[in-house]
């Protein structure tokens, strides 16, 4: 597809200039109760720049039809643009081939695909699956379901008091029964960046495949699946300034080919009779039904937008915000930061003595400050640190220092209300 190649050039360009970048995000102009919005819940979902919004509008107004089907003009355009989006994601994670990128509904769907497609076929009674304490529920529950079904066992890597994985303990968990590793790249609850390259290599020495949950990493760290040599890598568009309802699963082609389909339906077949169905080749084997075409194309525009700014520059800027915020929060008596790993993304989970996170969140909201409060779908992390819940401020490249200042003032106000 020549035309696909031509449009692989980023459609969007941008310069790193905090104010200029903020101008790309219409939602950041909102006022909440008359106060300027300080959106510090980016680990839950990030906001969408006008460039991506425009791309969705252009698709919907001039390019939409169903894909891989009809011979008419719109179907061909939509099919090509959907394929282009796949190629953009292939480039974004540096996959060897575009057929190694499967569009899913998001990270959770990607992990469930691997559980059903790989796990149900290859994991047997007595086998062991290694997960870590830092996993999001989405990388725990599917494996528990599988373990219960097959009579397999889950082994868990512990974390130290800073929220870092105990890699020595991880290595000790391996034995001849170990058949799979599920590993979160960056902790959504604490921001810890895990040493996944080393952990993948170690698993491979034992012939064990590794799935990386990259939902929190992809917006902040350059992902190179060939350099990592991971077997699967999953993330969602909506944490990378893209739409909800779409994500990807990267999988090594040979592994994907060996797997059974996850969902049955249209598009994933080569031929169907009532006696037998021949499955389509990858990636189509795993994309049953009409996919989220518009969202996938928006996803492509979103990674273009991020790539144009540069993930490394984004990471450097976010690190400066993290350091500033960590320093300011550490200065407030009664505030405790949970998760102090040496390597972190711009996520700060914190508690305030004597004040429940939900009360903190509600009172910060009246100052226009959006933080997440709760267990962050990571209850094992909360149990490890003996807290029922935390408040979490998570920063994106469009946040600024004055928003950190607003958070600090907001926290002091919370303490005043509860004095």
């Amino acid at each position: 597809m020549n035309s696909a190649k031509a449009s692989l050039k980023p459609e969007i360009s941008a310069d790193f200039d905090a104010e200029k970048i903020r101008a790309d995000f219409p939602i950041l102009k909102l006022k909440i109760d008359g106060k300027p919005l300080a959106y510090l819940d980016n680990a839950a979902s990030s906001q969408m720049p006008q460039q991506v919004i425009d791309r969705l509008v252009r698709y919907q107004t001039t390019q939409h039809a169903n894909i891989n089907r009809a011979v008419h003009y719109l179907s061909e355009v939509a099919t090509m643009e959907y394929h282009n989006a796949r190629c953009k994601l292939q480039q974004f994670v540096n996959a060897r081939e575009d057929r190694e990128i499967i569009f899913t509904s998001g990270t959770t769907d990607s992990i469930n695909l691997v559980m059903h497609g790989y796990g149900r076929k290859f994991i047997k009674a007595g086998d062991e699956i290694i997960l870590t304490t830092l996993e999001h529920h989405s990388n725990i529950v599917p494996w528990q379901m599988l373990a219960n079904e097959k009579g397999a066992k889950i082994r868990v890597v512990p974390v130290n008091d800073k929220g870092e994985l105990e890699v020595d303990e991880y290595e000790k968990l391996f034995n001849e029964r170990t058949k799979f590793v599920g590993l979160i790249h960056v902790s959504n609850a604490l921001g810890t960046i895990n040493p996944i390259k080393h952990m993948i290599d170690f698993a491979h020495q034992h012939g064990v495949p590794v799935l990386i949950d990259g939902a929190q990493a992809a917006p902040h760290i350059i992902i190179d699946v060939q350099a990592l040599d991971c077997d699967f890598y999953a993330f969602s568009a909506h944490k990378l300034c893209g739409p909800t309802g779409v994500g990807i699963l990267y999988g090594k082609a040979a592994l994907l080919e060996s797997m059974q389909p996850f969902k049955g339906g249209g598009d994933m077949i080569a031929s169907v009779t009532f006696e037998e169905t021949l499955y389509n080749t990858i990636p189509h084997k795993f994309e049953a039904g009409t996919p989220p075409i518009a969202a996938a194309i928006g996803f492509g525009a979103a990674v273009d937008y991020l790539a144009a700014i540069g993930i490394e520059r984004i990471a450097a800027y976010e690190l400066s915000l993290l350091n500033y915020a960590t320093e300011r929060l550490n200065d407030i008596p009664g505030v405790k930061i949970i998760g102090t790993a040496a390597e972190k993304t711009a996520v700060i989970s914190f508690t305030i003595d004597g004040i429940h996170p939900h009360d903190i969140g509600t009172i910060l909201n009246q100052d226009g400050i959006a933080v997440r409060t709760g267990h962050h779908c990571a209850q094992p992390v909360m149990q490890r640190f003996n807290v029922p819940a935390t408040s979490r401020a998570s920063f994106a490249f469009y946040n600024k220092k004055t928003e950190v200042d607003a958070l600090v003032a907001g926290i002091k106000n919370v303490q005043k209300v509860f004095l």
Partner: protein
Amino acid sequence: MHTNSLYQEVILDHNRKPRNYGKLNHANHQAVGHNPLCGDRLDITLQLENDQITDIAFQGESCAICKASASMMTAAIKGKSRLDAETLIHEFRELATGKLDINHPHHLGRLTVFSGIRDLPTRVKCAILPWHTLHAALNSIASTSTEANHDSAHKVSSKS
């Protein structure tokens, strides 16, 4: 609405100095309530004699809204009949979800300080958890959850 109106002095006071906090040693009814969305947990113990709630206590890990709601609930419910308690449970639920017309006769008294919660849908369950748990205790349901499939409190309230 402005959230300041929710964190009123009466609520903050009950949060600081919760009434009837603890566990009854000789309770004949008890229940544990969970809010799985935030990990909150509340224990309610009560003494029911001839359909009269003679004593009640609560304890647990929760936010200020939940704790104040539990504190004010125990104060309001002590000495009441089971039927009166169920009426209050129903009315409080209606208040928190914005279905109660405060101008019509009701029995909530100072509990109407929680009326602002209806504008904060994510916090409604915090205020309701103690009432949900009280209902479970009165009906000998050992454990309940704000996310329970069988919403027993609702079933009863829709009958009344």
